[in-house]
């Protein structure tokens, strides 16, 4: 009998053929299931947008305070053509990226230390939990006094928003690693670093990805707050500018861009993590119950 075993030892890419049978059966739906079901979710927003467009077009409303989709789109195109849009997007993205980075690094490091080491947890965790109880926006005046009104205070605020969910996620994930599986590592005499690399990291990863996504969501929330408190560029500036100059279409355009950027960045994390999480039950990918 001949048999070959390919061992993807470092990374298990391309492990899927038999691995995904259950998932494939669930994910091989009819054309209706595949396209019609997600489309169902579009009926309400698209219908409402078209209805509003129609109402304004018929002259039943001026659409001055609630501009129709076409006018929002026009505004977007205008902003894009002048290069304004790109400048604002870059400014906002840079802030989110920086704040997210610092927040994730701090949250991961402190969460890991608290999770791994009981003494550090008893020392550190009560303080962090107490700080967490403070609404993050309450820091704004202090950050402005300490760090000035420009980029630093904005990035700091975003980092604070990102920090807590990441910290909690990492801490909780480490604490909930199955003791029985850790014991397997002990039985095979794994060293401390090997235990972290081969048991703890993979065990913690699913919860960590969730924590990153929650953190990113908060990062987007806080960038708006940061830009509302005074900025000369950024999507938040577009919001304030639209309000002060009475341009609701510009506000809506900025909101649309926020929605797209938030979704895309979240999706990037999901895609980056997917190959590492293929071993998990594919229930979510099958769309759950019919």
């Amino acid at each position, binding site marked *: *009998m001949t*048999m*070959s*075993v*390919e*061992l*993807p*030892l470092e990374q*298990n890419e391309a*492990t899927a*053929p*038999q*691995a995904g*049978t*259950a998932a494939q059966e669930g994910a091989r739906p009819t054309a209706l299931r595949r396209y019609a079901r997600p489309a169902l979710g579009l009926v309400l927003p698209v219908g409402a947008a078209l209805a509003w467009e129609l109402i304004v077009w018929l002259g039943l409303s001026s659409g001055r305070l609630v501009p129709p989709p076409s006018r929002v789109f026009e505004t977007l195109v205008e902003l894009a053509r002048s290069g304004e849009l790109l400048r604002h997007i870059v400014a906002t993205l840079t802030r989110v990226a920086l704040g997210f980075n610092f927040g994730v690094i701090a949250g991961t490091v402190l969460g890991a230390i608290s999770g791994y080491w009981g003494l550090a947890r008893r020392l550190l965790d009560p303080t962090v939990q107490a700080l967490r109880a403070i609404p993050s926006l309450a820091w704004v005046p202090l950050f402005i006094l300490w760090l000035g009104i420009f980029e630093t205070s904005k990035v700091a605020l975003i980092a604070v928003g990102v920090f807590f969910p990441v910290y909690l996620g990492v801490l909780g994930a480490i604490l909930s690693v199955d003791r*029985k*599986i850790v*014991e*397997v590592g*002990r*039985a*095979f*005499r794994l060293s401390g670093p*090997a235990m972290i690399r*081969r*048991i703890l990291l*993979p*065990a913690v*990863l699913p919860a960590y990805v969730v924590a990153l996504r929650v953190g990113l969501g908060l990062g987007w929330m806080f960038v708006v707050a940061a830009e509302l408190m005074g900025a000369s560029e950024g999507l938040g500036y577009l919001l304030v500018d639209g309000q002060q100059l009475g341009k609701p279409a510009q506000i809506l355009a900025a909101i649309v861009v926020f929605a797209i950027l938030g979704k895309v960045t979240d999706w990037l994390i999901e895609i980056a993590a997917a190959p590492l999480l293929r*071993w*998990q*039950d594919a229930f979510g990918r099958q769309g759950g119950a019919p």
Partner: protein
Amino acid sequence: MLALNKLGKTYPNGVHALEQFSAEINLGEIVGIIGGSGCGKSTLLRAVSGLDPATSGTVTLDDAAIRAPHPKIGIIFQEPRLLPWLSVAENIGFGLSDLPTDEKRERIARALVRVGLADKARAWPRELSGGQAQRVAIARALVPQPEVLLLDEPFSALDAFTRRDLQDHLLDLWADTRPTLVLVTHDVEEAVALADRVLVMRPRPGRLFEAININLGRPRDRNAPLFDDFKRHVLTALDRSLDRNVPGRQAESGPGQAMWW
């Protein structure tokens, strides 16, 4: 030879789980450890494995003291405890990280064939049945070729058919390299079917009560009268270990009395 010398274990909470347990187990011998719940049989096994060292006494393997997990000692738990993020093949190779890749690959391939899961090499653990998962766990413990394999009620979570299947399978695998097996169980038939010697323990604190040699050839016929005799013998010893002296009158055991099954 695996020598247990006056092993005792008192947990930090004051529970006295094991007392003065001594036994000498020869290379290649299969020893079954049986006893009522709370008799310290799992404590004993964990002490031998080095995962949870004894508080008094010594464990020595070929004159080397065992105080921590040892490369020559493998352990199989009640649950398979496979790592869900590794494929079946990777799980089997988990304890082989020191070997060159080629040799590792070959040993895993051989083990997969040997436990009848060659077609599941790339499957995830969640796709396996309980019996298949436990076979992977057995393969994982055996590929590093340990001298001693400890088994902590390895089949108790399986249904009766699968359990019998795996018992036979274990003997089959054991015959390949003939490691020493120390098997903790609460199943009298399992002990008699597998072991050369059955150590009956008595509870509170756990002590050795009686050692019974199972002088039956292999393969063993579970329907043979002699097999039943040994079963009865072990059962009687168990009953006596729990101060229930007459096997026919178990109905009299009052509430609150320990039950060995």
